[in-house]
């Protein structure tokens, strides 16, 4: 107490400059954090700003003036729109297949002890530890030797392959914290295994499955390297950008990127809001019963 009383007047005597310096030193890590996050957002800011640019030539590299004319026709470029539709279709299908297969694997790995469990674990992890260029190259080798013509099917095969592992990893982490007595309770009350799965297990691991599916969708729609090897003449959104980078990127690429960014952000906000609401509802119920 005495010591504190002694330091207080001393503190007041500090000059404004040294007080600022003290504040900076105490919050250095937080200031650094804000700066680092600012750095991470630089390209996003540039993409949004340059979607309003009115470039002089084919290359959208220097700021030339503000215009809304490109935003008025975001889907004007047919090739770009086709590439985007292909990517969305591909990502939706790849997500569906990989989420179902991945969830089944996760259930087997967490729930059961069986011969080959360790080997399966390795088979899940190794693709995630392989450089994408090797994944693409090896798939192309297979398709070449079998004379399979490259196209939507080969793209789908490849995308499902690299998505499965990530779905397994996400769903597995959700299953590990699972309280199995809930299932036992359902079965004690006469539910058959299928009903138990549908009414108890699935709703409880649903957030994990949704998270896995979202990750698969993001990986698929963003993939360039593996698609580069397996697409043949098909052009996905990232492949279009790669091709256009040499000829000059139309402003519409930045517009669609901005749109995708906004949609993802809104979807994230919606998911968080819904989760919070569900938590609030769940926490209110017992009190109401009292």
């Amino acid at each position: 107490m005495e010591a504190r009383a002694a330091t207080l007047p001393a503190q007041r005597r500090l000059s404004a400059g040294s007080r600022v310096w003290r504040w900076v030193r105490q919050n250095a890590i937080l200031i650094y954090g804000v700066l680092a996050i600012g750095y991470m957002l630089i390209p996003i800011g540039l993409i949004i700003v340059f979607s309003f640019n009115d470039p002089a030539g084919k290359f959208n590299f220097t700021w030339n003036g503000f215009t809304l004319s490109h935003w008025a026709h975001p889907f004007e470029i047919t090739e770009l729109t086709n590439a985007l539709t292909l990517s969305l279709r591909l990502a939706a299908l790849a997500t569906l297949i990989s989420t179902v297969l991945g969830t089944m694997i996760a259930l087997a790995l967490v729930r059961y002890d069986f011969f080959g469990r360790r080997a399966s674990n390795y088979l899940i992890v190794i693709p995630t530890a392989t450089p994408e260029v090797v994944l693409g190259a090896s798939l192309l080798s297979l398709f070449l030797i079998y004379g399979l013509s490259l196209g939507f099917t080969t793209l789908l095969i490849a995308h499902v392959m690299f998505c499965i592992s990530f779905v397994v990893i996400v769903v597995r982490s959700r299953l590990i914290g699972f309280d199995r007595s809930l299932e036992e309770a359902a079965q004690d009350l006469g539910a058959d295994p299928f009903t138990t799965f549908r009414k108890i297990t699935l709703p409880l691991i649903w957030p994990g499955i949704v998270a896995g599916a979202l990750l698969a969708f993001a990986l698929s729609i963003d993939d360039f390297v593996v698609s580069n090897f397996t697409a043949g003449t098909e052009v996905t959104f990232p492949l279009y950008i790669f091709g256009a980078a040499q000829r000059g990127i139309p402003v519409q690429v930045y517009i669609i990127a901005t749109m995708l960014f906004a949609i993802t952000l809104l979807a994230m906000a919606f998911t968080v809001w819904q989760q919070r609401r569900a938590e609030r509802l769940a926490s209110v119920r017992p009190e109401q019963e009292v």
Partner: protein
Amino acid sequence: MRNGRLVALRRRLIPYWLLGPGILWLILFFVVPMYFMGRLSLESGIFPEFQFDWSFSNYSDALSAYDTQFFRAFQYSAAATILSLLIAYPLAYAIAFRGGRWKNAMLLAVIAPFFTTYLIRTLAWETILSDNGFVVNTLQTLGLVSNDGRLLATTGAVVAGLTYNFLPFMILPIYASLERMDTSLVEAAKDLYASSRKAFLRVTLPISMPGVVAGTLLTFIPATGDYINAQFLGGAKQTMIGNVIQSLYLKQTDYPAAAALSFILMATMLIIVFIYIRFAGTEALMGEEAERR
């Protein structure tokens, strides 16, 4: 009795039914392709006439022709991994311990780059660093870059691009391991008269090691095989092994050489990862300890 055994057998088969389709997919489209790539790497001839004849010379030829790009890829990716770690650790620490009510917003900002396409992010950096861009002009005015100097087509640009693009992969695992940490351990260390510095080095850092290991692997592996950053931000002197493999496969159709290089890349990668997790522990990669409950 018979019926009981049948039920038991059916129970034992359940995991295989669950596992079957997905594992089959991975075997058919991950393991089998590796076998065919191995076969292709031992063939000889000129497109489209290749014969399988155990030509191991493909390996030595490919390596002696492209050793520069091969070692450059590992150097660039090691540099990018170290830079990412230096940027990511304090950031993850700030979010985990000083984020307060802004924690979720900060995490959202960290993953926000994922909401835009990888290629467009890299393209944005190309725009920022472009020859007539704001950054180069400013640096030229300040005399930090000579008047005909550039930022694009330099080693720095490629390493910076790799660092930026894989940064979230480094931040998230480190954040996750710090977030789970029991902060009373640090208080205990301080009660035992450890300085803040010592408490960090002896308590916090070791506890966050699984996150650091996972983060470095998640950065190093994709960065080594990457060819987008070298393509957009680098020049002829910055090509990496990924660019070589891509070009040999898709432009020059020299499949045997490309397959041999892919195999060398993968083998080197696996050896490095294996040695690394031997020293650093496997939990981070396999998550097996958590799984055993």
